[in-house]
């Protein structure tokens, strides 16, 4: 099962470990299932299926959410986090989606989310971004990363 270690760079062994951990967690004795509510519940119900509990995603297809607050540094990036299909098409109203993204930023990029310049999403802003669908999420992501790396070819 040789597989290119691209994206998250996860090997089958790592997958097995992840699966084992998941199983261990699932089978871990009688600890009562915890209550999940608020934005975290929205994350678990609508996002975690693809992005996973730790935000790690899947190799080669779902990018890790670790450090994803870097997109907030540029306006298009701020829009991008709302316009990706997972966010834009979530069965949540704009206020709930804003709260969810803010929660995710704190959870997966705590350094940036706690920095003084951090400006949380608001419902009206989400409404605006959501109205403009993304055609090619992957291309937009790569373009934004180039801009963030200071590569002028990222500028349109």
């Amino acid at each position, binding site marked *: 099962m040789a597989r290119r270690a691209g994206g998250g760079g996860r090997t089958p062994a790592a997958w097995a470990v992840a699966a084992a951990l998941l199983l261990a967690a699932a089978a871990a004795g009688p600890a009562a299932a915890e209550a999940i509510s608020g934005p975290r519940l929205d994350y678990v119900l*609508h996002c975690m299926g693809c992005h996973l509990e730790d935000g790690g995603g899947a190799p080669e297809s779902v990018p890790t959410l670790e450090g994803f607050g870097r997109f907030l540094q540029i306006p298009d990036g701020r829009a991008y986090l709302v316009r990706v299909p997972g966010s834009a098409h979530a069965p949540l109203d704009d206020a709930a989606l804003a709260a969810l993204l803010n929660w995710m930023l704190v959870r997966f990029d705590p350094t940036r989310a706690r920095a003084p310049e951090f400006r949380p999403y608001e419902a009206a802003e989400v409404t605006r971004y959501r109205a403009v669908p993304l055609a090619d999420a992957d291309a937009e992501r790569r373009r934004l990363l180039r801009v963030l790396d200071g590569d002028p070819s990222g500028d349109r």
Partner: protein
Amino acid sequence: MSRSETPSWERHLDRWAEAAARQLARGLSRRSLLGRLGATLAGAAALPLLPVSRVSAASSDPAPAAPEGLDGPEGDPSSCQYWRHCAIDGFLCSCCGGSHTACPPGTVMSPVTWIGTCRNPADGRQYVISYNDCCGKHLCGRCLCNRNEGDRPAYLPPKSNDINWCASAPSTVYHCSTAIVLGVATES
């Protein structure tokens, strides 16, 4: 996931045997010949009539039998009616060498999946259920179960049980499905 086409002979036979018994008792008891024929058929049907792997449990059962598949305090995880299976579509791993929370030996659990909620009739709570598929071996072929509470078409991937969720596993070959409790959904 996903597969719901496999014939569920056992389910039909179970339901048939049950319904036939009732129907025979009700309507056919006078006609002993037909009654005997029915009984013979019931016996025959349980034997090698069936050309295929014996898939049990309820595929697309109209409604879970009351009281929502709860036999004991926990219920029977290898039964389609078990409360956690309220939106599962596939072969139950508990019938395939795994359990309702664990994959069978030698398979790989797909971490990417879809997540829904089911109400546990024992305590009235809404539990968050992750329907991770087990992948890398061919279709288990036992205990096909298709229930669709909250299931949506494939253009809404995070809500679709038709999708083969082995899609991002090392082998996308689907084997069976689990129903793992992640927590209790609580209004804040």
